[in-house]
């Protein structure tokens, strides 16, 4: 069907995903089949996607094909170019790791009451949906794949449906996914109306008036932003992501949100013609708000997976800030800078997939080992699950954008792009961008606080509950899965020039120019614009770090005969500390909660029980819920209450309606 090996590999990935799904469906009550056959197939599917993506990126150009499915006058068009290739790679990276992690993880569901058939079947479909979204080259296939992705992930969210909160989360998720999907469809409708067809080639060729282009942009932004979880369209995300099985959460947070980013880039930069500068401003504003709100809410959470989900909101905010910069620069015809910002965004896309995947897998490992998601019950896990502990640490360091890990590189690139604002002609824009970068800086610092809290409370200190004290090392597959992602986090942090070289074709394809300067001073030095403007050498910094630390340790080892001696903690000489005396996650977040109190709806409640024990209860809710979502729900509710009066139950009233309708219509047509 296609001569290109990249496209063939991509098809192979789709087929493998379908195969995994089919095997799960057919295997029925044989959980071993799922574990030993379906999950590894998922991994293979990921590998194939990864291969296809890398091939597409390195070979350049694009390949298209049509599939004999779909509408009679519009078969499914698929196309693999650099942009699709990059996102295929992202999907492949996380998915292939699931092949290692999954078999051991799903084992814990074998004895549960929830059907593994559904788990395996929908996992495969979910992957197929994501792959096809990235491959689609016409709006119809895109929408089919998009909704397939939403729908199958919905079933995965509802997997453990005995819990009413999970059902509610699944409902909210599907509802908002549906709204988003329809909005995207509308956006495509606008583009197709001008392009005269639903295939992307027609849309590319079309020229839209600025007004309609902005409408299409707005629709795409709302639709994809809803999936990407941008504030204020994020309400579903912290509900839905945590309740899915952890490896699915990793897929949803790490990959599915990226597919939304893909869609947005595809529509706005590829299909929608001329870019307007104020689109960039909108993106900057929404991205900044999302980043800040996301991280603040993340910091307030005590449920580990929920915290990670909020952190995804934050990271998507960062990605959209970078995209906003790219649009701004592109609209003002600074293509080189636009390329820099776009590369920053795409780099962060890859990074977030890696470290968020890693963190969710780590959360899954904790869940597997302790059946606990509540941070307040954890503690001291580093000594009980050292592998997971160290991998998780790498994830935390990466997400906190600390050098020399990968998160830092993309954030650094974003800052570099923002600092080129002086090149813009408009003074207003010049002063707006620094504010966005201030927000970015604030966000970065708060992320660090969040993950100090997570790591400190969960892995350090002492266990706060009995089952956490009994935590054990997780099976090899799960450790290996985390290990691969952790290794990738480090590699992408240390070798940025190579990664940028890989991403570069995407920028060239979309913007007409890439970042030729990035590796101009050799592979050691990352110089996005020029060596004088900014440079960063991750290999050298990690070398220096390792060298000095090694020297210091070696020196101490040599000098001191005696090793360290163990003793009781000092704690300013107070009584021996118990686990209950440790700082809790809630307490950790208290200073920030006070500083940013305006954003939250806080309900605090201190009571002294009869036994004299003080109890403290804290409820923290999103103000946006009451401001945005509740009024809509109330509106529909009251409209439906009004409408049902039509069905009063009295047949004479019904007849009256018929008579009235008849008379009104006769009156209308006689008047006409």
């Amino acid at each position, binding site marked *: 069907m296609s001569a290109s090996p990249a496209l063939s590999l991509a098809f192979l990935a789709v087929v493998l995903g379908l195969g995994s799904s089919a095997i799960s469906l057919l295997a029925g009550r044989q959980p071993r089949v799922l574990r030993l056959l379906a999950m590894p197939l998922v991994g293979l599917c990921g590998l194939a996607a990864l291969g296809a993506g890398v091939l597409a990126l390195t070979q350049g150009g694009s390949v298209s094909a049509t599939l004999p499915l779909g509408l009679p006058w519009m078969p499914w068009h698929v196309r693999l170019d650099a942009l699709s290739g990059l996102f295929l790679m992202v999907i492949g990276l996380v998915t292939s790791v699931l092949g290692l992690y999954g078999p051991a993880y799903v084992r814990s569901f074998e004895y549960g009451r929830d059907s593994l058939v559904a788990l395996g079947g929908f996992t495969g479909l979910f992957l197929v949906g994501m792959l096809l979204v990235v491959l689609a080259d016409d709006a119809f296939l895109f929408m089919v794949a998009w909704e397939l992705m939403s729908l199958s992930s919905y079933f995965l969210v509802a997997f453990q449906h005995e819990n009413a909160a999970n059902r509610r989360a699944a409902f909210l998720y599907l509802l908002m996914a549906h709204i988003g999907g329809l909005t995207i469809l509308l956006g495509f409708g606008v583009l197709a109306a001008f392009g005269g067809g639903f295939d992307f080639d027609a849309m590319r060729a079309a020229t839209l008036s600025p007004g309609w282009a902005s409408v299409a942009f707005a629709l795409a932004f709302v639709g994809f932003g809803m999936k990407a979880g941008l504030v204020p369209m994020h309400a579903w995300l912290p509900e839905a992501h945590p309740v899915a099985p952890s490896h699915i959460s990793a897929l949803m947070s790490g990959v599915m949100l990226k597919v939304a980013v893909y869609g947005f880039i595809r529509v706005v930069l590829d299909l929608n013609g001329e870019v307007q500068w104020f689109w960039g401003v909108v993106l900057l504003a929404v991205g900044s708000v999302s980043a800040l709100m996301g991280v603040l809410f993340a910091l307030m959470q005590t449920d580990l997976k929920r915290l990670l989900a909020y952190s995804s909101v934050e990271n998507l905010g960062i990605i959209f800030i970078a995209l906003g910069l790219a649009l701004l620069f592109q609209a003002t015809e600074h293509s080189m800078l636009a390329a820099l910002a776009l590369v920053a965004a795409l780099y962060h896309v890859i990074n977030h997939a890696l470290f968020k995947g890693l963190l969710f897998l780590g959360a899954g490992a904790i869940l597997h080992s302790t059946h606990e998601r509540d941070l307040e019950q954890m503690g*001291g896990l*580093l*000594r009980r699950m050292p592998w997971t502990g160290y991998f998780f*640490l790498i994830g935390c*360091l990466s997400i*906190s*954008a*600390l*050098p020399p890990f990968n998160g*830092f590189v993309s954030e650094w690139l974003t*800052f570099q792009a923002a*600092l080129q*604002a*002086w090149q813009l002609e408009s*003074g207003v824009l*010049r*002063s707006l961008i*620094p504010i966005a*970068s*201030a927000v970015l*800086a*604030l966000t970065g*610092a708060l992320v*660090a*606080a969040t993950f*100090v*809290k997570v*790591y*400190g409370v969960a*892995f*350090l*200190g*002492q266990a706060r509950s009995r089952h956490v004290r009994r935590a054990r090392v997780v099976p090899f597959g799960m450790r290996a899965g985390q290990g691969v992602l952790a290794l990738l986090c480090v590699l992408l942090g240390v070798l940025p020039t190579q990664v940028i070289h890989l991403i570069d074709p995407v920028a060239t394809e979309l913007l007409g120019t890439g970042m030729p300067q990035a590796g101009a001073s050799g592979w050691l030095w990352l110089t996005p614009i020029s060596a*004088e403007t*900014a*440079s960063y*050498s991750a290999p050298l*910094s990690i070398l*220096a*770090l390792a060298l*000095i*630390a090694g020297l*210091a*340790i070696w020196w101490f080892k040599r000098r001191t005969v005696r090793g*360290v*001696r*163990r*003793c*009781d*903690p000092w*704690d*300013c000489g107070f009584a021996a*500390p118990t*686990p209950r005396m*440790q*700082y809790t996650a809630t307490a950790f*977040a*208290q*200073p*920030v909660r006070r500083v940013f109190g305006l954003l939250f709806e806080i309900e605090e409640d201190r009571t002294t029980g009869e036994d004299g024990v003080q109890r403290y209860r804290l409820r923290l809710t999103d103000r946006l819920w009451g401001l945005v979502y509740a009024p809509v729900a109330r509106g529909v509710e009251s409209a439906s209450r009004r409408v049902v009066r039509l069905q009063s139950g009295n047949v004479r009233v019904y007849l009256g309606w018929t008579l009235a309708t008849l008379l009104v219509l006769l009156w209308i047509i006689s008047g006409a």
Partner: protein
Amino acid sequence: MISAWLIALLQALLCAALAPLLVGWVRKVKARLQNRRGAPVLQPYSDLRKLLFKETRVAHTASPLFRIAPYIVFVATWLAAATVPLIALDLPTARIADIIVLVGLLALARFFLALAGMDVGTAFGGMGASREMMVSALAEPAMLMAVFTLAMTAHSTSLVSVMEHHLADGFVLRPSYLFAFGALILVALAECGRIPVDNPSTHLELTMIHEAMILEYTGRHLALMEWAAQIKLLLYGVLVANLFFPWGIGAAFGPLALGIGLAAVVVKLGVLGAALAVGETVLAKMRLFRVPAFLNLALLLGLLGLLSHVILEVGA
């Protein structure tokens, strides 16, 4: 090339070596201002030496991370300091990291410091970590705003380029620099745990920030932590001094230029240290929840600096 690397190494060692001296100097001036004789200026060296060779004890409840953290904190801080031009400008180490990487390296050190504080599982450690992260969360954007002002003026985030640009322009009165200077001073006070944000010489339980985190450390671990803190103070001092007043720094690698550079930086740091001591004598430590207001002032100054740069200096 080799000589450049050697000078870079020398400068790095100089950083580490000078750091305790700065602290000793500040303490001495402070004591004098308070009508005390105070400890000798070289006392911090003795303290470090004592701690380095003392027996090291670690709590039963501590994890391996507790023992690794001091090395990472020290190394990250030192590496950050090494990338700041101290006595000469165009050093290869300076190209490893620009201003943002520098902030990132300091953040890395802080991350591990806070984790180490939480590791033993005592109440004070967690408290210190929590407060430290809040303070840094507010200080970091202010810091970045201040340096962005400089970076946008010089069109570069490389410290060397910023200083070169400044030197080439000569002495120009820039409103933006004034604001950025104020912001950076405030941030430096907060980050280095000086009055009025934190008191480095107190162990009064409920007011500690930095000290609370390293409460459980002893021996060489404590030495590394203390040394790192001293290097950090030096680093901020050098940043303030050389970014805003780069004159005197060696533009070439000749012995004369380096000697002048060293002398210049010592003088500048001496003045700054004295000013810090005066400030710490005059001011009182703030309540913890006044600190955000303090840092918001810093952020405001940073933003004003950036905006005044955009509005007043770039022109229409």
